[in-house]
């Protein structure tokens, strides 16, 4: 019996020592002693030139990568310092000398210049505009004008002709909302193209396009201005902006949802609406109603966005249509500060 108890006690002690004590496991140590290098970020590089402005755009999926990139300029060089190494995928050829060493991208410009730097989102990108400096600026070092999102001289505009396809919209006699908004959008597009502006239409024919598809298209084009065109049942122009309040700094997480993209552009949308409203009022001598509403399309677009409703009573008049086109152009130009 005593023997049996001794065996039992030994077994209990063994089992306790096996489970109760922490097991020490040695983690493998990297041979070099350093942390493994982070994978290089894919950065797309685009060059373009419009009206004497050379634009270089670096685009990547990581917003913090763009945020932590710095741009400096000295003498005849512009230096773009990225936070880590990158895989640069260039589209097009620049008309100036460029080089990439590690995480430093250098642009050499042979004539006096000044630059404008923009950090934009949706998609995250860094835009460097290089302009010829005025003669008296020639010997001064080039200055970085701004680092926050601002409106560039060559703004990108997305026009959204409301309704389409089986979704006819308002019908008044022979007039159908889907036709009228499309015709007006084409007319504004043509006028903007004449001024060498970049402009996109959400639909290019009489086709149905869902609200979600319109928002996705607009965000893909990364516009500075988004205008959705519709008709109003009243005798007044109605300009809608999203009811989204400007984003607070601690609400960064909310901004990733499609429906809350507008929050960081709320102030810009208001400025655009007021600019358009003033011009329309002056040109067409009609009352303008500015209204905030939770319209899902406006809430989903990451740009200064408005929906303009034209009075159904005047929208079919060709001379009024021409005035509306001109007013929209002036409103966009006034917003862009041109």
């Amino acid at each position, binding site marked *: 019996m005593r023997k049996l108890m001794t065996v039992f006690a030994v077994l209990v002690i063994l089992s306790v020592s096996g489970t109760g004590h922490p097991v020490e496991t040695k983690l493998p140590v990297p041979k070099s002693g350093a942390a493994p290098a982070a994978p290089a970020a894919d950065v797309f590089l685009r060059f373009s030139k419009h009206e004497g402005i050379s634009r270089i755009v670096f685009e990547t999926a990581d917003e913090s990568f763009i945020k932590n990139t710095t741009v400096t300029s000295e003498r005849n060089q512009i230096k773009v310092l990225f936070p880590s190494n990158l895989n640069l995928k260039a589209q097009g050829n620049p008309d100036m000398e460029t080089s990439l060493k590690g995480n430093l991208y250098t642009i050499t410009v042979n004539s006096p210049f000044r630059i404008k730097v923009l950090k934009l989102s949706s998609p995250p990108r860094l835009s460097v505009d290089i302009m010829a400096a005025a003669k008296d600026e020639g010997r001064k070092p080039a200055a970085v004008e701004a680092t926050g999102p601002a409106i560039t001289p060559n703004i990108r505009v997305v026009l959204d002709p409301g309704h389409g396809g089986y*979704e006819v*919209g308002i019908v008044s006699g022979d007039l159908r909302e889907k036709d009228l908004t499309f015709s007006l959008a084409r007319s504004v597009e043509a006028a903007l193209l004449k001024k060498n502006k970049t402009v996109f239409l959400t639909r290019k024919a009489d086709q149905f396009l869902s*609200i979600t598809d319109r928002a996705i298209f607009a965000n893909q084009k990364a516009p500075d201005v988004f205008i959705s065109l*519709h*008709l109003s*049942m*009243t005798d007044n122009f109605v300009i809608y902006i999203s*009811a989204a309040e400007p984003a607070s700094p601690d609400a960064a997480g909310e901004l990733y949802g499609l429906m809350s993209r507008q929050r960081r552009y709320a102030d810009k949308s208001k400025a655009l609406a007021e600019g358009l409203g003033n011009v329309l009022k002056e040109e067409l001598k009609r009352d303008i109603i500015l209204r905030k509403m*939770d*319209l899902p399309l406006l809430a989903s677009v990451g740009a200064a966005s408005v929906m303009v409703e034209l009075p159904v009573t005047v929208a079919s008049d060709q001379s009024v249509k021409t005035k509306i086109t001109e007013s929209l152009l002036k409103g966009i130009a006034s917003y862009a500060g041109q």
Partner: protein
Amino acid sequence: MPANRKRILWVLVFALLFLGGIAGGFFYFSRNFGFKQAAETVPQEARQAEDASFVRVYYPSEGRLVMEERRVKRQVAITAIAEEIVNEFLKGPSTMAKSAVPPGTKLLAVYYGSDGILYLDLSDEFRRNFQGDALNEFLLLKGLYDSIISNVTGVDDVKVIIEGKEIESIGGHFLALYPLKNMLAEVK
């Protein structure tokens, strides 16, 4: 006493007891379970008043919602009350010449989800015959939502489906893919 007569006597006693039991049961149940009401003559108007209730229905009208009180059949179940209200809503307002409610719309079914959402299945006319701008669409949906929420307790939100299917939008300005509450914040 002969055995036959004694047997007949017992049968009679049992038969009397049986009939007495039936008669007693009839009087007991008729007194306690409402046979009395059926026997009473209730005036028809009073009976109708007891069966009816008033609901507040909100109709879109000239850029705002106007409320009308409508008399509907008294109902107990949530879906039955909602059915009465939506049918009144679809009839349109009595005071306006032209209704902003899409003509020809029929209520196909009402479902009440365990999530507190009331699903209104409407006919395709609700989408097809809608004529209006963003504010008109807003007021149409808000009128429908307010009419339900202000009359039916236990409903947290309302969702519109068309012909049994989810659709993206009624009039091309608002999403109908989601319940209405969050989308119908006040216009500023």
